[in-house]
């Protein structure tokens, strides 16, 4: 089974709130000083799913694709160190400020250029923008079925059986191959890279493809970013007065009712 895993490098979600800044004029997140970007936390689970499926299937190849600046190589290297076979970085200045639909178009072109994929796996969302629409976008462009938020994926004859996470339970569906599946954190813990695999991954060459290599023109943004800002949170503290606990509770209830909170 040939599997493609799409991974993304994002600002560290553990960045303290005080270090998170946006440039409202440029509509960009300002990278936090001294805090290195990381692999999107859902993506190693997609890689883990690919590795388990490959092991169960007894063969095939896992290709990792990432779209981003040169530093996104680290996200690819992490997947290679977990056991993936090959890596492709889609990197071009033209991709610097693209939206989700343009991202999906670039990934779809890269997936077609890699070719012969039985399955495309992605994390359920990227933890920076948290939109989770790229899998559906790629599916739309490639005309492939899309199964989202998977907690379990098993090869089932010529297709897949996928267990999805719902708000109030789980859902099991079957999908033909090739297909696109987005993998949720409920899938289970991804493996830690072994030192030997880190060494082997470091020796692997990551191919770099530009927009021209993919034969695509990103064109105008379908969903242009209008504004990017940090909400201003204001909070006030009011001490509820009263001579007895009962009186304080009564005063609190009156305040809450006046504020239309109860």
């Amino acid at each position, binding site marked *: 089974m040939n599997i493609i895993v799409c991974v993304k490098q994002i600002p560290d979600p553990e960045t*303290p709130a005080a270090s998170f800044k946006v440039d409202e004029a440029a509509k960009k997140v300002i990278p936090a000083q001294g805090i290195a970007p990381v692999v999107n936390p859902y993506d190693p689970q997609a890689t883990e799913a690919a590795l388990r499926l490959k092991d169960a299937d007894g063969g095939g190849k896992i290709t990792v694709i990432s779209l981003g600046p040169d530093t996104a190589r680290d996200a690819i*290297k992490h997947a290679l*160190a977990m056991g993936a076979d090959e890596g492709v970085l889609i990197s071009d200045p033209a991709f610097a400020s693209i939206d989700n639909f343009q991202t999906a178009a670039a990934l779809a072109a890269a997936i077609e250029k890699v070719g012969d994929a039985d399955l495309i796996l992605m994390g359920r969302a990227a933890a920076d923008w948290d939109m989770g629409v790229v899998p559906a976008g790629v599916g739309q462009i490639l005309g492939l079925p899309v199964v989202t938020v998977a907690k379990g994926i098993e090869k089932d004859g010529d297709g897949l059986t996928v267990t999805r996470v719902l708000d109030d339970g789980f859902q099991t569906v079957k999908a033909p191959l090739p297909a696109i599946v987005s993998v949720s954190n409920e899938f289970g813990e991804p493996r830690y890279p072994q*030192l*030997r695999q*880190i060494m082997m*991954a470091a020796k692997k060459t990551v191919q770099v493809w530009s927009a021209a290599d993919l034969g695509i023109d990103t064109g105008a943004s379908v969903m242009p970013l209008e504004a990017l800002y940090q909400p201003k949170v204001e909070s006030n503290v009011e001490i509820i007065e009263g001579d007895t606990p009962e009186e304080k509770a009564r005063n609190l209830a009156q305040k809450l009712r006046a504020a239309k909170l109860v």
Partner: protein
Amino acid sequence: MARDFAADIQDPIAGEIVTNVGVWVDKEVKPQASEFEHADQFPEPLLQGMSDMGLFGIKIPEQYGGLDLSFECYAGVCMELARGWMSLAGIINTHVLVGYAINEYGTQEQKDMYLPKFVKPDMRCALSITEPDAGSDAQAIKTTARRDGDDYVINGQKMWVTNGHRAGVYLVMTKTDTTAQPRHKGITAFLVPHETPGFIKGKKFEKLGYKGVETTELAFEDARVPATAVLGGNEGRGFQHIMSALEVGRINVAARGVGVAQAAFDDSIRYAQHREAFGVPIFQHQAQQIRLAEMIVKIRAARLLTLDAARKKDSGVRSDLDAGIAKLYATEIANECALDAMRIHGGVAYSKELPVERYYRDAPLMIIAEGTSDIQKTVIARNIVKEYPI
């Protein structure tokens, strides 16, 4: 989220390895280290994690199934392990140290017998030098090994043996000639399997820190080993072999000092920004700023000294001066930083609610083990004077 602790590693692959070990430490070690430590419980699941990553084969040559990584990489890994829990870097220390001694000085038969088994922790190692009446003066040991036909018969008592109960093989320093002058010419090292008749694993010591890993007594009562158990096959070379291996141990302990100091700093600078006193976070008070600044300067210096010593060892030359400098400085500042962390945290650091008390209890081990700070100073002085002949 943390600083890039691999930033000073020069080899990019080593840097990636150190970064990955750091991720494992943050996710798996830090959340449960204090629980294991307070219970003085051997951290079997963490050892399994270290084994799964391949850490036990980090210095074993590839021909024996290991990774043969650099000392620079090893030092960085030990810093990260100690940043989570100092004992983990201690468990791997004797393992690497004995493997190094066998690889450097062992016979081919000894390499073939042991090194493939050291890649996994299934056969762990212990180093046994110290005795009740011989610590820093290692040449004063009284454990003897007497030749008897094709065998040697070992008698004596050893102390403070890390991995003392769980090791599969022990590198034991003995005297085969009690009258030799200089004394080191009478010292021979043996590889003693744990099941050797007459080899007795004694009591486990209760300790201030360095918990989770057992530190024990050993006794030899007419313990009989074949002559093939002599490290390298030659009598009288044991002191040089073990002292050379201890250079590796000193790099490890220096790295442990860096790791503990870094953990103390990381906790302190975060706490100082949360904890308020006199209406502002205590970080705003100049006294705490100065304390934190002094801590990070010391830690950075210790980190660079330790990596420098490791790279010297990688170059293949003697590094006892560099390892001694790194070990002395890194372990002393680990104690200072652990105490500074107590001062910054105040009363809560004196409880077991936070790991600061663990850093404070773990740090003193490192100014004693693998050569005390005073011994390091004599090693440094005796080496540096050679560069100033008159």
